[in-house]
């Protein structure tokens, strides 16, 4: 295994011990459970999560400062929620000193860049108390999700209960029990273009990162990466927040995570290279080289 999984101190398969969270969560309820614990313990005084936006399945960044507010937000919305846009306001009119934030790998990159190069993020760098990253193969514009659900899956967005990407398929679960699966080759054209140069699958820069891949249904794979993450994770374990299994003992296990991570990175690395000769002696910009 190479660098595709980033640095981590610990990797386990886990799920929340809270039935209510498990019922609402996308996978093992890691994100919601960990934020809940951190809120209750005063480790964070608010978390930037993806709340319900103006249209069905459209997320918007939302600052939860109570467990009650937090409990309205579990579950994955497969379209863009500009999580980082609230990172400064959270420390201003919300008065937070210890901010939690959940986001995709690229959003974790944005957070860390913002801490090291705070161009317009005054007094934010030392207030990021818990950054939870989720795994991410790609994201979608809202219109893409609408078309995938309404055209391809033949369901109204309003009547969808859950969406999921797993086992090579895009799954749409209806409120009345219908299940539609779409092959991923259908979804590719709908992806957010910026994702095609993304070189991180498992939120390498988060304090704790998590996703479903690698673990059985209803469980999540968890990487504990930083000192902060380690500290909070071990406290949460101590408090009985999670049931865990060694990652080596679950199927399909870490190998699957590595495989997908490598696939994503290899594919997108190729895109980055192709961009260098996209036009006729004209390159598209490469953010990894210079601004």
């Amino acid at each position, binding site marked *: 295994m190479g660098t595709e999984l*980033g*640095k981590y101190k610990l990797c386990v398969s886990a799920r929340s011990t809270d039935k209510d969270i498990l019922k609402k969560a996308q996978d093992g309820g890691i994100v919601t459970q960990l934020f809940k614990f951190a809120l209750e313990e005063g480790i964070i005084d608010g978390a930037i999560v993806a709340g319900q936006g103006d249209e069905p399945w*459209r997320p918007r*960044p939302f600052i939860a400062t109570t467990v009650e507010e937090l409990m309205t937000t579990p579950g994955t919305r497969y*379209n*863009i*929620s*500009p*999580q*980082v*846009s*609230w*990172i*400064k*306001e959270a420390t201003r009119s919300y008065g937070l000193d210890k901010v939690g934030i959940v*986001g*995709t790998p*690229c*959003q974790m*990159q*944005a957070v*860390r*860049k*913002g*801490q*090291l*190069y*705070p*161009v*317009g*993020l*005054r*007094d934010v*760098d030392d207030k990021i108390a818990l950054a939870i990253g989720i795994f991410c193969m790609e*994201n979608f*514009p*809202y*219109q893409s999700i609408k078309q995938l659900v309404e055209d391809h899956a033949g369901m109204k967005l309003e009547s969808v209960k859950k969406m999921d990407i797993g086992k090579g398929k895009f799954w749409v679960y209806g409120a009345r029990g219908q299940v539609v699966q779409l092959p991923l080759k259908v979804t590719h054209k709908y992806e*957010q*273009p*910026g*994702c*095609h*140069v*993304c*070189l991180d699958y498992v939120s*390498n*820069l988060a304090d704790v990162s998590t996703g479903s891949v690698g673990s059985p249904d209803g469980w999540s794979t968890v990487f504990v990466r*930083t*000192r902060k993450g380690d500290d909070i994770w071990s406290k949460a374990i101590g408090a009985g927040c999670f049931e865990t299994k060694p990652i080596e003992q679950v199927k399909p296990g870490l190998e699957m995570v590595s495989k997908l991570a490598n696939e994503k990175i290899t594919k997108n690395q190729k895109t980055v290279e192709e961009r260098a000769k996209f036009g006729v002696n004209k390159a*598209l*910009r490469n*953010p*990894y080289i*210079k*601004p």
Partner: protein
Amino acid sequence: MAEKITVGHVHMSGCTGCLVSLADNAEGLLTILDKYADLVYGLTLADVRHIPKMDVALVEGSVCIQDKISVQEIKETREKAAVVVAVGGCACYGNITRFGRGGQPNQPQHESYLPVGDLIKVDVYIPGCAPCPQLIRNVCVMAYLLLKGTKDQQELAKKYLAPLMQLAERGTEACGCDLMYDVVNQGLCIGCGSCAAACPVRAITHEYGKPNVNREMCIKCGACYAQCPRSFFNFDVVTEFEAISDLIAGALK
């Protein structure tokens, strides 16, 4: 402890907000002055009237080319300073002085304001209006390591400063439109929201995940683009965020 570096603050046509921002490092500023840098020039803070030789010049404000003293001082700054840092939107990109068009008493001829980089070579950019105290601090610490640190520290400082040097090479124009030109139009935007968070005049909203810039609010400070993870993202540095944050925090102890 190695000897200190010498730093000066050169005030061109700026509002002193950049300097206030430096001062807003609070006790961190005292530590910097105790351990790493001697402030050898800065009309607001020190009594020195004429620009001396120095290691690092922090230049605030743009240059009024109809004002002889300003033009002379910026050239002198280049001659006297080993490293010139443009601090803040005005020095980097012109910021609000880009809107200046003269005609105001008592000097109606003061019409043209240029970012520092249009008159001299600038080494490092710190965009933003006001620029963040923490970024100014980080650059000061890295400049110290670059000039006085061990080999490893010099390497790190070089890597850290590289994108800020590349921003200086990139040019002297900035505006919210850069998010469109150089991110969205380039197929790079990921809808993270950093640009909106960075904007000091709340000119940016996200519409279905992508930035919309209210161009009649934008003041051309350049913060949004520089903050965007898709303007620059240097893996070798940002991946080490924990160690580098520790290093900087340790330096300020």
